[in-house]
């Protein structure tokens, strides 16, 4: 990406650190990869680490892409891991793309494109197909292989509108076994924020990443014939379209079938929201009807989409403004400009589409965990696909601008790989903790209306995550104890761990007892409550480090909530030493659907270790 890492304050990898990263292998479960992208050059790379056990099936690897497999149904024979969509190349280059200069999309987002860990290796597991989606049987096969092959980090930008029970979810099962082998899995939170869905990848042993904005926006102006100017959004690199006729579809639908045979050639077609859910409103209908441009109503006004023809997206109010002009004149015309780049002083703001919590599977674990850039991200693309994926769009680009929690996830995957490159012995829980407790808080004016249920601990901060001071560690036994508290039976859990010693002994425990870096509780609306979170901090800083605690309670919750921490000082005498404390949160529960937010901050002169505390009331 050309901007997001700078926005996160994450500098280019110094040349001397590239070999350190070369021992890190990131497994990408996605749509494959386009190996000819300059982002995946292996210039200057040595051979793969000797521990690597992966293979390259129907694919020519290099010393950057050291593994490639494809999965679809019964056999992998003859399947190609080549990316014919672009998504997998985009995510892979965000994690580990080489630094490539003079990158842009038609002049937009120009700069040096780079991944988090350009020296790291990539192993590609193609589980998603342009027709057929991503089958769970294939996903689990990819986890099975990736873990055994020897990856260090798994990046999983795949999901659904809702979560599934842990042992009825391929990614939850796969990432559990990854965690047991020291492999951290980073996942997307989901894109259902506008359609009522909930965060989808919620297991506590995986990182769940929400999408947020960066300090760059792409806007497009449409100037109506009456002189009014409306500012919408899109990635419009087509020449300016001057004084073209505005046309509203005969039946109010921009479906290709509806527009076929109409006289839309050379006109700007105005597309209201589709009447039926699932019908695309992506400009494909106006394109096939020969339109010169399109104006589309969007609910995701924070996103600049690439359209297959000139045009822009606008809000419903803006669309109504255009329609008022159209209905006021016999010859409505407009001019559509090329995209302009502007700043975004509100950033980081939670993406409208990013799936919010609460966590429907384990209400006592906050998900998503944190946020990362996921709006208008430029990264590598496949030359086998157009930038829109529309078969009538004949453009080919090496770098494309797209949005989604798919784009946020690889930022966190890359940061996890970065942390791992300095701390090879850290467990997945330690790496997750480092990323979560160092995130930059997002309770800012730009996020008014959102809560930690939407953006988690805040915005990813890779440089701070490298040196977090304290971490909250957890082993597979700790996760099993959490599952016991949630009602999973011991026999089932003994099979999962392969240990007869697995027993649900700690009756009466709760999910909130898991040594997780955030603290969440669902409470009864309107009732008084008291919840306790036992935690153990592991010292990963100086041997004699000491921390004092500060409690931050959001203004709106201050009169209703008390947060006590005991003890209020943590003193360490050795590296890796563990010290326990308890956070007690009490008060009056919020109203149904409302959230009380606070944070527990352990601090000294060198470090700030921040844990959000979220109490919410929901059915």
């Amino acid at each position, binding site marked *: 990406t050309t901007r997001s890492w700078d926005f996160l304050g994450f500098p280019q990898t110094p040349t001397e650190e590239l070999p350190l990263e070369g021992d890190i292998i990131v497994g990408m479960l*996605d*749509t494959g990869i386009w190996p000819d992208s300059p982002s995946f050059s292996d210039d200057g790379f040595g051979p793969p680490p000797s521990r690597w056990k992966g293979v390259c099936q129907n694919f020519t690897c290099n010393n950057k892409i050291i593994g490639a497999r494809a999965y679809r*149904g*019964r056999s992998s024979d003859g399947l190609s891991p080549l990316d014919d*969509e672009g*998504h*997998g190349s985009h995510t892979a280059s965000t994690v580990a793309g080489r630094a490539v200069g003079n990158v842009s999309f038609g002049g937009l987002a120009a700069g040096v494109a780079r991944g988090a860990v350009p020296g790291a290796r990539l192993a590609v597991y193609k589980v*998603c197909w342009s027709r*057929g*989606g*991503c*089958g*769970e*049987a294939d*996903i*689990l*096969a990819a*986890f*099975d*292989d990736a*873990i*055994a092959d020897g990856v260090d980090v798994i990046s999983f*930008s*795949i*999901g*659904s509108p809702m979560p*599934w029970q842990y*042992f*009825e979810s*391929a*990614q939850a*099962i*796969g990432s559990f*076994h*990854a965690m047991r*082998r020291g492999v951290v899995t980073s996942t*997307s939170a*989901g*894109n259902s924020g506008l359609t009522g869905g909930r965060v989808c990848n919620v297991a506590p042993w995986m990182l769940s990443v929400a999408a947020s904005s960066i300090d760059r926006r792409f806007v497009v102006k449409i100037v109506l014939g009456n002189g009014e100017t409306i500012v919408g959004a899109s990635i419009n690199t087509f020449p300016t379209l001057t004084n073209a006729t505005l046309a509203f579809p005969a039946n109010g639908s921009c479906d290709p079938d509806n527009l076929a045979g109409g006289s839309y050639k050379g006109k700007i077609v105005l597309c209201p929201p589709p009447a039926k859910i699932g019908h695309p409103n992506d400009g494909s209908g106006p394109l096939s009807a020969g339109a010169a441009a399109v104006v589309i109503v969007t609910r995701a006004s924070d996103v600049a989409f690439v359209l297959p023809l000139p045009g822009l997206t606008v809000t419903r109010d803006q669309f109504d403004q255009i329609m008022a002009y159209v209905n006021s004149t016999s010859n409505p015309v407009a001019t559509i400009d090329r995209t302009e780049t502007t700043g975004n002083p509100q950033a980081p703001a939670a993406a409208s589409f990013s799936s919010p919590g609460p966590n429907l599977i384990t209400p006592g674990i906050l998900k998503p965990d944190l946020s990362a850039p996921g709006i208008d991200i430029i990264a590598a693309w496949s030359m086998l696909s157009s930038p829109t994926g529309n078969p009538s769009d004949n453009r080919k680009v090496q770098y494309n601008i797209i949005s*989604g*929690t*798919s784009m946020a*996830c690889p930022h966190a995957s890359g940061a996890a790989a970065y942390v791992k490159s300095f701390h090879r012995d850290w467990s997945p829980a330690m790496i997750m903790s480092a990323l979560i407790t160092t995130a930059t808080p997002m309770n800012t004016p730009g996020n008014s209306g959102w809560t930690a249920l939407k953006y988690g601990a805040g915005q990813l901060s890779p440089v701070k995550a490298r040196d977090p001071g304290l971490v909250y560690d957890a082993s597979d036994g700790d996760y099993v104890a959490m599952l016991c508290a949630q009602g999973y039976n011991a026999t*089932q859990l003994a*099979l*999962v*761990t*392969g*240990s007869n010693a697995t027993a649900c002994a700690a009756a009466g425990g709760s999910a909130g007892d898991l040594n997780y870096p955030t603290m969440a509780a669902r409470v009864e609306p309107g009732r008084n409550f008291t919840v306790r979170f036992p935690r153990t901090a592991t010292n990963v800083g100086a041997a004699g480090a000491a921390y004092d605690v500060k409690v931050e309670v959001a203004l709106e919750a201050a009169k209703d909530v008390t947060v006590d921490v005991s003890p209020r000082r943590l003193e360490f005498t050795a590296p890796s030493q563990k010290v326990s404390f308890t956070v007690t949160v009490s008060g009056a529960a919020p109203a149904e659907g409302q959230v009380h937010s606070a944070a527990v901050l352990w601090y000294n002169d060198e470090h700030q270790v921040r844990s959000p505390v979220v109490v919410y009331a929901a059915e």
Partner: protein
Amino acid sequence: VADGDGRQVYIVYLGHLSSPGLSESEDGVSAVEFAHHDLLNQVLDDSSSASDRILRSYKRSLNGFAARLTEQEANELSSMDGVVSVFPSGIHEPL
């Protein structure tokens, strides 16, 4: 999606893998795969063969398999000793 026989792909999750299924017999089938076939054959009638039904065996890092099953077969498997869960292989999307 169920086929004409009412079968669809299920994942049969068996949990921890005691030893990776790398050693193979002369016909290329590992002990782990044999165990998967044995398990599945216990719920199939004589007209079906496990080897025709199993799409994939998970045998390198975790234990389980994916197979085309009827709902009844899936239910029978889910109640057997050694089975953690049996669930339909859903379809997800890139996000």
